[in-house]
């Protein structure tokens, strides 16, 4: 099987066979994940949402060796599972019914706590016409919903969770995975684009209902080449608010990004320098919006250079 083949090339039966024996190995940006799980919901989710992800060769180095499985026969009977990274279980057991959401959260966690060769911001990242836009945001600010809408209107999604910035650059590294949506946002995006493809809905999580949107719709979604960042945008959804797009000072943008970084502190002074270089190279804006179509149109104009013209 060539390294250029995708998960879709396996077919359902071979995908399940890989998940049960030795792991399904696929590429996410520069990283290789290997996932092992006997659970049908995990197989369904991966088959649907990772169809376009490149398979990794059997002999490739695996960055994150993940398993979702019961710890033993009693846990299997109780329908409880653990998330394992390299045979360690860093989290409490969860219900098997929550397995797919747990997989996605666990994959996020792997990238959040390891791999400090990049300055990592907690942000969605999208791109259009060769220019990336980083969207840091507090939980509930609407960045994932906006990211999903942009994905469905032709933007490339580099990530809905991590902006990976090589130090000394204003670039981001693509690590495309499905966009996580919660509660009412699921119906908002289904209505925004009825043809949108969602994975299994996980109910009764600590965040409510969670579902994941297939987001690798744009050509080149799995090209690992870093993309130059032109804009850092701080979105804020406000019901009924008129659209407003205003410039934000670099210092305020710096501090927000630093406080919402996975590893600014870990990197020490090198993190400060990396953040300074990055913020110097991007234009920073606040976006207040209530209508997704209006927001998408405004951002199309912004990235094409029309802001302030």
């Amino acid at each position: 099987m060539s390294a250029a083949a995708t998960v879709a090339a396996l077919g359902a039966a071979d995908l399940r066979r890989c998940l049960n024996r030795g792991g399904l190995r696929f590429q996410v940006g520069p990283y290789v994940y290997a996932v092992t799980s006997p659970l049908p919901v995990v197989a369904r989710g991966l088959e649907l949402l990772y169809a376009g992800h490149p398979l990794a060769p059997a002999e490739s180095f695996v960055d994150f060796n993940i398993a979702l499985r019961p710890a033993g026969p009693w846990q299997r009977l109780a329908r409880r599972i653990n998330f394992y990274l390299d045979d360690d279980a860093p989290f409490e057991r969860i219900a098997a019914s929550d397995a797919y959401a747990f997989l996605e959260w666990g994959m996020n966690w792997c990238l959040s706590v390891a791999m400090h060769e990049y300055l990592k911001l907690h942000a969605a990242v999208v791109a259009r016409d060769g220019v990336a836009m980083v969207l840091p945001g507090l939980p509930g600010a609407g960045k994932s919903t906006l990211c999903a809408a942009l994905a469905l209107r032709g933007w490339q999604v580099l990530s809905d969770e991590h902006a990976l910035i090589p130090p000394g650059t204003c670039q981001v590294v693509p690590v495309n995975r499905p966009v996580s949506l919660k509660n009412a946002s699921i119906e908002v995006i289904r209505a925004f684009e009825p043809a949108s493809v969602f994975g299994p809905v996980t109910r009764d999580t600590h965040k409510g209902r969670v579902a994941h949107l297939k987001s690798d719709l744009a050509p080149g979604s799995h090209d690992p080449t870093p993309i130059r960042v032109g804009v850092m945008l701080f979105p804020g959804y406000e019901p009924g608010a008129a659209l407003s797009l205003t410039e934000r000072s670099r210092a305020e943008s710096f501090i927000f990004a630093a406080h919402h970084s996975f590893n600014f502190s870990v990197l020490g002074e090198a993190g400060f320098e990396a953040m300074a270089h990055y913020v110097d190279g991007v234009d920073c804006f606040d976006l207040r919006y209530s209508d997704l179509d209006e927001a998408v149109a405004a951002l199309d104009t912004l990235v094409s250079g029309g802001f302030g013209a």
Partner: protein
Amino acid sequence: MSVWRLAGPVRFYDRGEGPVVCYAIDSGDTHLINPLASRLLGALASAAEATMAEPQLLATLSAGSPGEALSLSELQSLLSDLAAADLVLVA
């Protein structure tokens, strides 16, 4: 009146917009400060003995802002805020 010094080495991200990012190298704490606080910390960083007494600080900061006189109580309030943020110490 007290004599003050920096709690540790600091770096600034200042692009002339008003707010300034102050990074405390030893602790990694990162703060958003106003231009006056940035000038105060910069004065302490440049001080010949690495310390400055309050009258000296007052004179330095007032000289940098003609027409915007800073009172001693305002200076002491600012120093108190910066001390609470572990950026300055009484020497």
